[in-house]
């Protein structure tokens, strides 16, 4: 099983050198998934073994291709990205039978790069949640401690990569859904700049926030995956038409010696778990030892970020999820007699509690009489939050921040208190509001042996430098042990 502990970059080399065949590697992964899946429940849909092996054999016959940077590498995909002829549920009952007829842009890119997609990974329903407990297919457990959540909403992807079921995964991040599960599971998680990666085929939750990105076991791996999935796409009108750097190469060539980290004073106050703070403080020292400058900065509107984020994202959700009406796809209620009843019964039966809660609150803040007080007001505060960062970049190159106020929490501990769950997103939502990239990096363990992450936040389209810097830090940081379940 040692082969499964390799990083994506390492297994890539083994495959290219033919130290291991693709078929053998897939068999090893499937065996390991069969052993670990009953404990963690990371996949909603795993592809048929025979189909995977046939795909692997074909790659073995063809041999490595220099134009396929992910040749033969087994990956997982969060179940919110459409996959042609492979069921895509969004963790929801309403889509339990949905089989897309096209691939998401990201999936198309991965396939063209030679990756093997093992299956679709568990998530909070429609990406709404921070624990993967809001899945209609049962919660995912954290491989570091099975009584704890893996984070969310990309919790299935994070748990799977941490448990060595696959070598990397693509998740999505609307308010922290890549970075927070990455930090709970001891992984690298990158939320790219808004528009860096096409949203075509990403089933929308908050369209002005959603971004797909990698969850991996090293910074180099994240660079390689981003290089494959980034790029302009005419099918997404918000996709940025900017050249895609060779992230995986510049990571070593760019010197990341002189840099200033801003430390937002608003992030280090009340509510931060002492264990997280301790590990975070030691990372600050490490950065100073590496020659980095640390400077206190201010993001003065931080205290308004969560309210702003939730008003806007719920409004967008209520609009985006109107498409699930039991007519064109998804589950339809059998008893409905009228069209209105068909909509209401299909939706109430198909959506879980958190999704219905957000749709209703979104409907409320968009409704006549409340639009200006909530939706427009929040969009104005979004501008202020975004300008906080513009000011910050005058003083520092990157911002260093915790990812989550606590390490992974126990299953069931926040699920009945939605507001309490929302407040956990304090460090992650601001950068989605501003459209900035952020990378979550494992920085240590708590006394209970739970991973703790820190995030590096950069200006728009700064991924190249951000990855180079993260890689430098990764080198200097103590390496995490294997999770107990791996």
């Amino acid at each position: 099983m040692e082969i499964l502990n390799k990083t994506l970059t390492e297994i890539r080399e083994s495959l290219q050198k033919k130290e291991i065949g693709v078929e053998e590697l897939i068999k090893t992964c499937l065996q390991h998934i069969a052993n670990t899946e009953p404990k963690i429940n990371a996949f909603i849909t795993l592809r048929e073994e025979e189909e995977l092996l046939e795909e692997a054999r074909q790659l073995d016959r063809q041999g490595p291709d220099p134009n396929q940077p992910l040749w033969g590498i087994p990956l997982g995909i969060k179940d919110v990205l459409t996959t042609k002829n492979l069921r895509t549920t969004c963790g929801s009952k309403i889509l339990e039978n949905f089989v897309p007829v096209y691939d998401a842009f990201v999936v198309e890119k991965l396939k063209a790069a030679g990756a093997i997609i093992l299956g679709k990974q568990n998530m909070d329903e429609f990406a709404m949640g921070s624990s993967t407990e809001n899945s209609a297919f049962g919660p995912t457990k954290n491989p570091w401690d099975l009584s704890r959540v893996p984070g969310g909403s990309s919790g299935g992807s994070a748990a799977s990569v941490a448990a060595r079921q696959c070598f990397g995964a693509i998740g999505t991040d609307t308010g922290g859904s890549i970075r927070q599960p990455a930090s709970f599971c001891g992984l690298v998680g990158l939320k790219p700049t808004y528009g860096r990666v096409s949203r075509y085929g990403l089933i929308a939750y908050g369209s002005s926030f959603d971004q797909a990105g990698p969850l991996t076991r090293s910074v180099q791996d994240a660079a390689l995956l981003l290089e494959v999935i980034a790029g302009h796409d005419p099918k997404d009108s918000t996709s940025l038409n900017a050249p895609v750097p060779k992230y995986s190469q510049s990571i070593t060539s760019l010197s990341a010696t002189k840099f200033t980290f801003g430390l937002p004073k608003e992030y280090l106050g009340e509510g931060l778990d002492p264990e997280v703070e301790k590990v975070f403080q030691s990372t600050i020292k490490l950065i100073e030892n590496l020659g980095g400058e640390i400077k206190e900065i201010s993001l003065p509107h931080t205290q308004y970020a969560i309210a702003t984020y939730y008003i806007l994202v719920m409004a967008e959700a209520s609009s985006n999820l109107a498409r699930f009406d039991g007519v064109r796809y998804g589950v339809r209620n059998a008893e409905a007699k009228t069209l209105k009843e068909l909509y209401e019964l299909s939706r109430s039966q198909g959506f879980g509690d958190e999704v219905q809660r957000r749709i209703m609150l979104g409907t409320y803040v968009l409704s006549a009489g409340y639009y200006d007080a909530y939706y427009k007001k929040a969009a104005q505060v979004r501008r202020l939050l975004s300008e906080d960062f513009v000011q910050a970049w005058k003083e520092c190159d990157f911002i260093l921040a915790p990812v989550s106020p606590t390490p992974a929490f126990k299953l069931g501990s926040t699920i009945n208190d939605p507001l309490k769950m929302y407040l956990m997103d304090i460090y992650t939502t601001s950068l989605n509001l501003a459209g900035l990239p952020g990378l979550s990096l494992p920085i240590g363990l708590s006394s209970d042996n739970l991973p703790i992450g820190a995030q590096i936040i950069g200006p728009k389209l700064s991924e190249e430098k951000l990855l180079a810097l993260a890689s430098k830090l990764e080198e200097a940081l103590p390496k995490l042990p294997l999770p107990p379940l791996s």
Partner: protein
Amino acid sequence: MKITKEEVKQIATLARLKLPEEKVEIYQKQFSAILDYMEKLKEIDTKEVNPLYSPAELKNVFREDEVKKDLDREEILKNAPKTDGEFFIVPKII
């Protein structure tokens, strides 16, 4: 922000959801707490602030208006709960 049970039901209707009676009360309490928290934004003066609806702030992304075929009818109808092979079928409207 106190939300009444009637308001919860009204919001559900607007959102095309049907709530069982026992859920109305739960949502009433949760909505009141969540909206109370959101009241926070009232502290800030935003009179002169231009709203930011999307971080992309791209304007008028145009493309040529060309007819292209992405999917055929069969594919489009593939996931529909009820069709007659040509159209989506819903309960009678008029």
